[in-house]
């Protein structure tokens, strides 16, 4: 009986740990996707600046 209770506690802990891990992973994946877009925005700005410098030459 004790063993069953201990097992149940262990499973519950694991359920919560796994849920938190999944949530963290979702957030990390999201941040990566957003970073890509932000880099794209930065790149287009750099290109614009580069073009205007070239135009000045």
């Amino acid at each position, binding site marked *: 009986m004790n063993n069953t209770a201990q097992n149940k506690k262990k499973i519950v802990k694991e359920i919560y740990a796994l849920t*938190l891990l999944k949530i963290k992973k979702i957030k990390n994946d999201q941040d990566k996707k957003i970073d890509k877009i932000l880099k794209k925005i930065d790149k287009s700005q750099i290109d614009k600046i580069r073009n205007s410098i070239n135009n000045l030459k």
Partner: protein
Amino acid sequence: MSEIKKPDSNEIIKPPQESEKKSTPEIGDIVKEGEHNITQATGEIANNNQNILQNIEKNPNATAENIADIKQIVAETNQEISGVAKEKDIKLTELGLEQPEANEEENKDITEINNLLNQELTKINELKKVLTEVKNINNKTAKEKKIILLEKITAIEGTDQAIALRRLSRKETTSEGLSAERSKATQKINSVDRLLTKQPDSSLQEKNNVLKDKLNESFLEKYQINAELDLLLKKINLDLEKEQTNTPTENESKRFSKEDQRIKDIEDIQNIETADMAKEKIDKIMNTIDKNNTLDTTHMKELPQRILMKFVANKKPMEALKLFDYIINKDKNITSVIMVEAVKNILDQIKKINPDRYDMINDRIKSKIEFDNYDDMIGNLPVGITK
């Protein structure tokens, strides 16, 4: 679950403080601590995402497409997190576990939600005062009026001038007005709701329902005030352009007169009391607009929504329903936040005044719109709560 390594689990699940004193923590303590950790993690993510969205909207280099992409990514994250939380609940239910009782923490949340909503209502009232004040200024140029409006809105919205600038430069105030306060309050209400589905508590439920109503009222008020500010701004911007154009060309004169007409159309909304009057007005404008002109087509899309929200705010659900039918017959896309909130409000008001007709009307609306997640987005969500 066996693939979870012990060190990871120990890192994430901190033993509950109370149970530290005991040699073996009770299962209820483990659940309570686990729920607390998840609420904390999702709360942090929500705040962080709110900042991301605010920053991208302020970023002058971001295109509309960039902003839309990021909004979409954040929406997908929310959906995935909600799926993971549901999965966890199912597993716990399978183990025959009850959720922790509503405790002090949830009651603290209720107080905090109330404070957040009060802050939001204070802001709305201040915006109302600004609106009246600026409307009544007669002895100033449009440029001076615009500066006064900018300064006053900035003072209300906080030191972050970008919010006010955005409002003034992009002329976009008909959105739902998702402030940080609203967003946090929604997040917390949802979190209390999640707890209540697992562990019903009538007193907490009642308090949370009151807050939901308050949140919805603040949403409706914010929409109305934003719509009025938007109209005032449209007028000021047009006057400013006229002031700066000494001798308008023929094309400029035409454009000015068109914009004057668009402003008049919006002002006329105050005289529209029934759906039939609204339909007549919309049909009339529809015949005069240029379908290749983006400003015209946007006007045509916004105007019916403004009238619809007026009916909703004035608690005229049957007129709103008739107008909704008319709008949806013309355009089946109701994914805008405003349309979703309008539908939820119509249903909520019908439920209160005529509960017998609720199911029939809900089915009718459901059959008319092309919306895959209808039950998830409308049927099961309370008014004022966006997903």
